[in-house]
């Protein structure tokens, strides 16, 4: 799986999920249609998005996605067209949500983040775990080996469904 496209740089740390999508837009029952509300919790968010209409890759700073567990944050990013988020660190729940929605979360060192924030575009090879900025030499990153499979094939729910017999057997064994 190759993700290739222009970068939107959000040069800020600690973007919480209320800023990614405010609670007033959490009134649906499906995962779709939330892209239009992306970053409306950031005063300059919509303006920033408008500068890079076709961006596929978001680059930002540490602790991205902290706060509320709302998966709507990942859905809004995906619905808007993002396929990968690059940051020095992610909040736990957002990190899991990203994997569960095939929004590839890439952790890079602070040093490489500086380069990525200045780059115009990137090409990401999810399988090989490499990325190239503006056509430059490939940099490597690492993904969670299990959750990577959720991105590449079938998704998280399907994986869990395949485990149900094991889980039932464990439950019976552990209650004895």
């Amino acid at each position, binding site marked *: 799986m190759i993700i290739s496209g222009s970068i939107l740089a959000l040069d800020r740390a600690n973007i919480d999920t209320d800023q990614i999508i405010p609670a007033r837009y959490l009134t649906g*029952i499906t995962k779709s249609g939330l892209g239009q509300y992306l970053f409306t919790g950031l005063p300059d968010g919509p303006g920033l998005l408008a500068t890079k209409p076709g961006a596929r890759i978001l680059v930002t700073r540490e602790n991205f996605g902290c706060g509320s567990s709302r998966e709507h944050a990942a859905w809004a990013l995906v619905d808007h067209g993002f396929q990968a988020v690059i940051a020095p660190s992610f909040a736990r729940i957002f990190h899991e949500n990203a994997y569960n929605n095939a929004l590839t979360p890439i952790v890079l060192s602070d040093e490489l983040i500086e380069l990525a924030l200045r780059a115009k575009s990137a090409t990401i090879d999810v399988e090989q775990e490499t990325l190239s900025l503006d056509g430059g030499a490939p940099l490597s990153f690492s993904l969670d080996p299990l959750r990577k499979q959720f991105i590449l094939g079938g998704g998280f729910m399907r994986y869990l469904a395949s485990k149900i017999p094991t889980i039932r057997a464990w439950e019976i064994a552990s209650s004895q």
Partner: protein
Amino acid sequence: MGKSLFEKVWDRHIVEQLPGDNALVFIDRVVAHEITTPQGALEIEHDFGDALYDPQRIVAINDHVSPAKDADTAIQAQVLRVWAKRHGIRLYDIGDNGICHVVVPERGYVEPGMTLCCGDSHTCTLGAFGAFALGIGSSAQGGAMLASCLVLSRPKVMRVHVTGKLGNGATAKDLALTVIASIGFKGGTGYVLEYTGSAISALSMEERMTLCNMAIESGATTGIIAPDETTVAYLRGREQQPSGAEFDARAEAWLALRADEDATYDTSVAINGSAIRPVVSWGTNPGESAPITGTIPSDADPTSLTYMGLEAGQALRSIAVDQAFIGSCTNARLSDLRAAAEVFRGRKVAIPTIVTPGSQAVRRAAEREGLHDVFQDAGALWTHSSCGPCLGMSMGVIAPGTRCVSSSNRNFPGRMGADGRVHLASPAIVAASAILGRLGSPDELEPLPLAQSRGIAA
């Protein structure tokens, strides 16, 4: 090598080790609310034949916007209702509901040693009972309903050892804010906070819930506190608990669940509980707080200050507020309402003030004590239970640029309404601020005539 309490609970629930640092973790109880459950439930219906692993392990609650405020939120609640009914899942709904993190313990759905999850970050509240309880996204929530398991990487454990005893007007909320300020608002990322020490054992269950509720505000996976007699006494007689010998047998097992004497932790912090003073947040994350008698630190983050319309060095007690809110899963249980009522009794609010009980059961208990009269006599609005303005969705959303002092847990930009500003504090500080019209504490209020302070009608 001894084990921490968290490790013991974790180890008992591992179905299988998975590639990487991951494990398949069995989940004993799934809590479902109307904002984050329908998506996973619909996916199971479409893709997996509507089969849930064990509906009896699920409890559903309409809480975030209840009653609905418009057609969309009505649909969310209705989807939860219809789904729960179809699967025979117990649903707490209008009239008998409340914020899920308040309802679940008060009905006795949480027990020491359990694992629980909910598509809501403040599920960590339930760690107060010695359970491993965590917030997750809607897909993971769907997975937990489909297979009663989560895929988790094992968190590290941070011991937060609090010695001494809270006093001098300091509450569990002040402790929670102090812990976040000392470890940093991302300092808990990757950890479970295991709270120990004399100041922790002295807390009531309601106070422990306030403390654990805010574990997520340091980025932590959750918080956890060892069960003891206080825990047992709280759970005895609750709706979902058995009585008599069956309960006693459970209680015995719970009391045996604790960290080993020689438990090792990945990291530890020590806090002197006796030194904690009432605090209030001044910035845009819960780690940015300071004692109410103090000033905004000179090294305060300028971005936070610009958003909040404040300056470094400013006295916190000089900050005028436009609205006060007592509510949320952090501080809207009976003891919180009593603490607020103590301050309101015989006085009048200077700004619009909303008091929202954590559940309908709390509401009824408060009314039996006449607290609703105290709030309304003071000029505050006494509402039914819901999440309300805590998340800026209904029942008191604040206007851009205005400032609300709140007993809730998040002060992120726009949290309680677009461009609104939030100051977090304990119910007593919120109540005092409501009367003063600025941030302030109960000790600043004019003493009342004796008869009035005893609640005797003049």
